[in-house]
């Protein structure tokens, strides 16, 4: 049970981060993976095995949309964009996250 909950938490966090990234620009899976590793300074090790299911879950819930594109060097890739619903979700989650992290921060400082 404990392990499951951790996984859920991470999953939720990952989706949150994906939405945050897509807010700036549309990305494909590969680029997104590297951007995440870059931004988090390798603290979050994101694997393809967790990223792609997260993307598909977001798509199924209507927070992102995807379409096939062909890049300048003729490479096909599936490009993800954030939808208006995704933006709203991101805002909501950001608020939750801020409150949560403030609370944890405060606790940690006091302790």
């Amino acid at each position, binding site marked *: 049970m404990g392990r499951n909950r951790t996984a859920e938490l991470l999953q939720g966090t990952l989706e949150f981060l994906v939405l945050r990234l897509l807010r700036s620009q549309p990305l*494909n*899976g*590969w680029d997104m993976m590297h951007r995440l590793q870059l931004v988090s300074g390798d603290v979050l090790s994101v*694997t*393809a*095995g967790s990223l*792609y*299911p*997260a*993307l*598909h*879950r977001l*798509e*199924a819930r209507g927070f992102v949309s995807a379409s*096939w594109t062909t890049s300048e060097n003729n*490479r*096909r*890739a*599936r490009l993800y964009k954030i939808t208006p619903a995704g933006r709203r979700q991101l805002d909501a989650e950001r608020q939750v996250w801020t409150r949560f992290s403030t609370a944890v921060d405060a606790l940690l400082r006091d302790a």
Partner: protein
Amino acid sequence: MGPLPRLRTRLRAILRPSRADRDLRDELQAHLDRHIEELTAGGMTRHDAAIEARRAFGHLVQTEEACRDARGIRVFAELAQDLHYAARMLRRTPGLTAVIVVTLAVAIGASTALFSVFDTVLLKALPLPDPDRLLVIGETSPSTHSTAVSYPDFLDWRARQTTFDDLAASMIIGGVMTGGSEPDRVFGRAVSRQFFPVLGCRFELGGGFTELQDRPNGERAIVLSHALWQRRYGDDRTVVGRTAIYNGDPYRIVGVLAADFDFYGGATANNDFFLPLGPMTDQPFMHDRTSHPGLAVLGRMRQRITIRQASADLGAVAAALQQRYPVTNANETVTVRSLLDDYVGDARLALWVLLGSAILVLTIACANIANLLLARAGARTREIGMRLALGAGRSRILRQLLTESLLLAGIGGAAGGLVAWGATASLAPLAARALPRTADIAPDWRILAFAIAVTTVAGIVFGSVPAWQTARVDVQPALRNGTRTSTGDGHRLRDGFLVAEIALSLALVAGAGLLLRSYARLLDVDAGYDARGVLTLRLRFPDAAYRDRAKIASTLRQIRSRVAGLPGVERAALTTGVPMGRSFPDRFAIAGRPEPDPRRAPGALILWVTPGYFRALGIHLVAGRDFADTDDDRGALVAVVDEAFARQQFPGRDPSAAIGERVKFYDSDPRWRQIVGVVDHVRPGPLEEPGGAEAYGPYDQLEPGWRAEIGRAMDMAIRSRVAPEALVTAIKHQLRAVDPDVPISNVRTLDETVARSIAPRRFNLSLICGFAGVALLLCLVGVYGVMSYAVNERTREIGVRLALGAAPRQVRGLVLGRAARLAALGAVLGTIGAVALARLMSGLLYAIPAGDPTTFAAGVGLVMLVALVASVLPARRATRMDPLVALRDE
């Protein structure tokens, strides 16, 4: 096409990748390609890069599945896969599959067939608009058991109620319809004009009655049933406005009912014809609130009124009437029930018990199947362990196993549908004799829904525990040990199912036993007459042709002597009512005692008979003498009473003490007559009901006016030396010779009448015995299966015991002892269940207490016996085991 591409196409066909699936694979492939590209750009060989990219990616197939899961599309693809796999598994074990499917087919088929009867009787709406708003309203007082209503009370209710659209009254009447080729004995109802509108029934032609017809001296109008119209007028659509002759008088036909008319049954249930009630309301007895012909009152509640509200409303009206008419209406209360409830009556309880029994059988079947699957779970440990090791999730395996059991259930359900089809067809004629509303049992959506629901639930019930047990295996020991890894848990589960199965079977067996004993007790009842070889029939003289009183008596005498003279006829007698037919309650007084108030006088059923009646019916004369031909107008007035009468009126004395006493009957002939004989008590109606005091008087000594009136409808009882059925033609021939316009009806043997009266019991009994039989059979199979499995599993242990010198008897004891322990536990639990079931069905029992210890003990004995018989073979196999072979096993 080479073998490899062919395999690939086949695989693709099986998996049928959807567009989304292809997209997903392309997307992940693009990711890999990108990585490979970057790695080769960094100097790696293409081969190493491919390997490295795959390594970095992680589990490709798992990711794919996770993505499909995330999108929710996986379920369908997997379902197809699961079904495919499940079908293969079932094909691999055809024996097991066949056993399960047959068990399910029988259990689902039986419950569905029974449900189709249940549905037809209790759930199907009456063919009337908003039938739920129709109520039957009766009045009961402590003195009368009937719920019949007096006409003035009906009028008051109708005027004062506030919760009904309207109330209508009806009364059963009967007579003769002439004017065609054959006279017709018809039964119908006199109804107030609100009757048809309240019912809301449809007409084939014309309509109901108007106010001009429904009043004293109103126009003579008649409504015909569809069947009578067809029989007498052959579908003639111009019949409205024409004249029908009923009891010799002309009536104008104003309507013909639609074919689907159903009021307590079709045309045969006193619905041949309808007359307006109004013309009969000028007779004084219609205005008597105490002694009245008895009306049935029907009401249609207003929209959005509940039965409770309607009942409270009428209760208040009845209370007001009590105040206003304290003498006649004291203690009279109103009873209200829905038309459907009143219509189906006792059938409701019986059908619930039967449906419950069918579902018990289905539950037992499920327990049996669960055990079979649990046994197989042991055998599949290795397969499941392998799949778990290869990365399948436990939930995925669970789903796979449940799919298997649902597929099994589906096949069993489909086969059960066929069984239900056949069973319903053979059940229908039995049901038609035993239950109301069963004239045609047609499948409808409720029956289909029931079958599907039962099948699904059964699949989940018998599949979930084995699936859970199977999917629970630990990977490593499963792979190491192979098949023999079922745990102690498996034992306990199997034993648990077996105990449950035995317990449920015991409950059913005990229930069946109680019904069986009730039935036997009922057959043992001494009804007071000997039904064998007796033919009964009813004569009805058309009123107009027999206005002359003397003509009726003389015609009756003629008929009687002609029939008595037929070869094969031992005795023929006339009576005002044969057993289970009409009965006339009367009140009496005994001479030499203070004269009672006629209203409070003791009651007895009185029959007016011709000499020979007692011998025709085989009613034993206890003391005194039978009626003789000399007991007529010229002779002294006499009567015969029964033992119950004698005991009640002359308690503590021999029944013959009644002889010589004088008695008079207020209602039929209030003249003193001397008791000359005492006969055995006769059960007048259903065999269950003992009935009270009875008396007989000579028909030829009735006051002439009343004699003619009563004589219009007389029953004849004929004891024959030959098969009674063989006489029917000859008797009809004699009657036609006397008067072709006198119809005879109700021609049947008394045996048949008795059989009809116990047909509902027979129906319940044969069904529940069938269920109990199936339950025992399932138990037999179940115990055998579990014991065989236990012996197999303990092969090694038994081998060791035998090798160490254990006697075969000890080994046999080992197996039988276990079976006995389980059966005993099941018997204890089952007895509790049986007590509960018996209490529920106590309304169906006769002369047997619901907690009858003998029946329960016999049930326990039977179930234990079955358990032991079923374990004999496995036990014998255990003793015959070759220790060497047994020890090498593993």
